[in-house]
């Protein structure tokens, strides 16, 4: 990994606002500010974990990066090429380097296609678009090779998704994402639907594949311990914004943002002795709806350490020490 420090994905000021319509013919009533200005970089060969509660905009961020949603504002550079400016045909080519693995292995595989066809589909699409030269046999070989790589027997090629268990289905999804030899894989909660014993198998598979192919991951999960295990760096999201980014071990040892602290203290640890001694920061209230833009900090309503300034001015992400960025006025003065 000599090019480890080279930036592969650079997200700048990404915003994704969804219009809310009242009726069929009436106009837009307002917006859901799902992602409201997110900046981060992912370096080659690393795993950036994206963690946060439901509705904080993790999945929307991934989908806006993949251009499944066209972002409202901002730029997404993959290999220094801005994806938001590409036309549909160019985008197909660019997606060769960027694939997705989805959360629900039941919903993300077409029930009418065999496992082999599902894995071959990206290859066939590229062939159809004249971006790949491969014979039928070559594609078949590639599919078998991919199946072995993800731990599925090639004899399962002609089976349908319903014949597989959840863990095996997720393996099919991973094989599909690998078909085009991408550099970046966007993993949207890939292990959340799996049982504990299967979850660790799939996490290890992700690690093995990363080592073998030098893959880069943007790994989304709501489970903090999963994120800690898989990631080199972690970004914490709250209500459409990143509140803290740091090296994984650093973040868990030394959380700075009050939300990160609360999140870490709320996560259960499977050890009764530690659980008995732990002091929890219990946040009051629920995550508010992202249907309005707040002038101040988005976390203001629930923050145990809020100050007057937090209500009026929105903090921005600033580096407190090398590699550790936080967006909170406890650590830097408002300008």
């Amino acid at each position: 990994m000599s090019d480890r420090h080279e930036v592969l994905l650079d997200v700048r000021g990404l915003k994704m606002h969804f219009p809310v319509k009242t009726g069929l013919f009436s106009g837009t009533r307002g917006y859901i500010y799902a992602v409201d200005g997110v900046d981060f970089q992912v370096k080659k060969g690393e795993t950036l974990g994206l963690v946060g509660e439901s509705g904080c905009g993790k999945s929307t961020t991934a989908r806006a990066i993949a251009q499944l949603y066209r972002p409202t504002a901002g730029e997404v550079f993959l290999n220094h090429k801005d994806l938001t400016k590409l036309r549909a045909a160019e985008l197909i080519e660019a997606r060769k380097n960027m694939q997705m693995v989805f959360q629900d292995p039941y919903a993300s595989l077409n029930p009418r296609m065999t496992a082999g066809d599902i894995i071959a589909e990206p290859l066939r699409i590229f062939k159809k678009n004249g971006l790949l030269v491969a014979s039928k046999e070559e594609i078949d070989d590639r599919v078998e090779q991919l199946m072995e790589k993800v731990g599925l027997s090639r004899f399962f090629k002609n089976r349908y998704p319903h014949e597989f268990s959840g863990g095996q289905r997720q393996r099919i999804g991973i094989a599909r994402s690998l078909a085009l030899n991408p550099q970046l894989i966007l993993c949207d909660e890939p292990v959340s639907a799996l049982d504990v014993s299967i979850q660790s198998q799939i996490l290890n598979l992700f690690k093995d594949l990363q080592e073998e192919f030098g893959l880069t991951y943007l790994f989304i999960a709501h489970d903090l311990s999963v994120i800690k295990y898989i990631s080199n760096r972690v970004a914490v999201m709250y209500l459409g914004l990143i509140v803290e980014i740091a090296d994984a071990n650093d973040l868990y040892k030394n959380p700075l943002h009050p939300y990160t602290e609360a999140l870490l203290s709320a996560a259960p640890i499977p050890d009764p002795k530690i659980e008995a001694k732990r002091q929890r920061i219990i946040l009051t209230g629920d995550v508010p709806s992202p249907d309005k833009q707040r002038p101040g900090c988005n976390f203001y309503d629930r923050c145990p350490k809020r100050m007057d300034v937090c209500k009026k001015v929105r903090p921005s992400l600033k580096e407190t020490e090398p590699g550790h960025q936080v967006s909170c006025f406890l650590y830097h003065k408002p300008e």
Partner: protein
Amino acid sequence: MSDEVILQVKDLKTYFTVDEGVVKAVDGVSFDLHKGETLGIVGESGSGKSVTNLSIINLISTPPGKIAGGEVLFHGKDLLKMPPHEIREIRGNKISMIFQDPMTSLNPFLRISTQMVETIVLHQKIDKKAAKEKAIEMLKLAGIPAPEKRIDQYPHQFSGGMRQRVMIAMGLSCNPEILIADEPTSALDVTIQAQILELMRELTRKLGTAVILITHSLGVVAGMCDTICVMYAGRIVERGRTEEIFESPRHPYTQGLIRSVPRLDQETKERLYSIPGQPPNVIDLPDCCPFYPRCERAMDICKKKYPPVVSFENNQSASCWLYGKEAQNV
């Protein structure tokens, strides 16, 4: 927690007949629940956790399901042999339940007040006005702000965490002796999960309610439960006090499960352990240890016979052939 046993489950068997054969969802489960105890039932999906608890309050739909054997003794009376009108007196009153998804377990067409008052009037034989007061008091205990106003709202006007609070308030409104909570926080976010677990802990302690907590999360049981039953393929493979199960798990499945969870409080440099293979299909399971194809320490006998329950000196017990000699059979 006292020594008084309020619920005894003895060799409970619940089978479902499907086209492919007989699904032995629960196959010989036994445990005791003491007054004020919080008992955790852990296991992966399909291990029979939920069916065990539905069987306890006799809520298995027949057909396809059938309680094929066993006893569920509540204060010495077998719930499985009770006529429907008698069990209805107990269900929701002495034993109440909270389910995973609060949206599907609340009726979306009825106001919270209607749903709560109905239960209280039915079981406590008080008039509607008093029942509503009681309901408001319970909602307040469950941490719902402005309960006098919120009680007249519909379920969709509550957030997920708030709905689960309503379910808890409703479940505890008749002062049950036992609260069965089936994955009560699995649909919730981490910070909301912490709130709800804290609330359950506080309220059940205050009211002296015994809890059966069903969950797949080892973290949740570690923080909540006095004792744990680990289920695999329809049976309890290990049972004991929470600290002891985590300190010295005996069954290879429990050991594997604990090792395969990534830990927040440790730096994970080495590879995460994972149990190979997948949970078995419980259709027509042969009478051997269902875990042996995935077990690192499997022996010949494991393929032939189901291991008996072996008890250890600290009240821990496990069903595994590894402990045939060193412990006494019970």
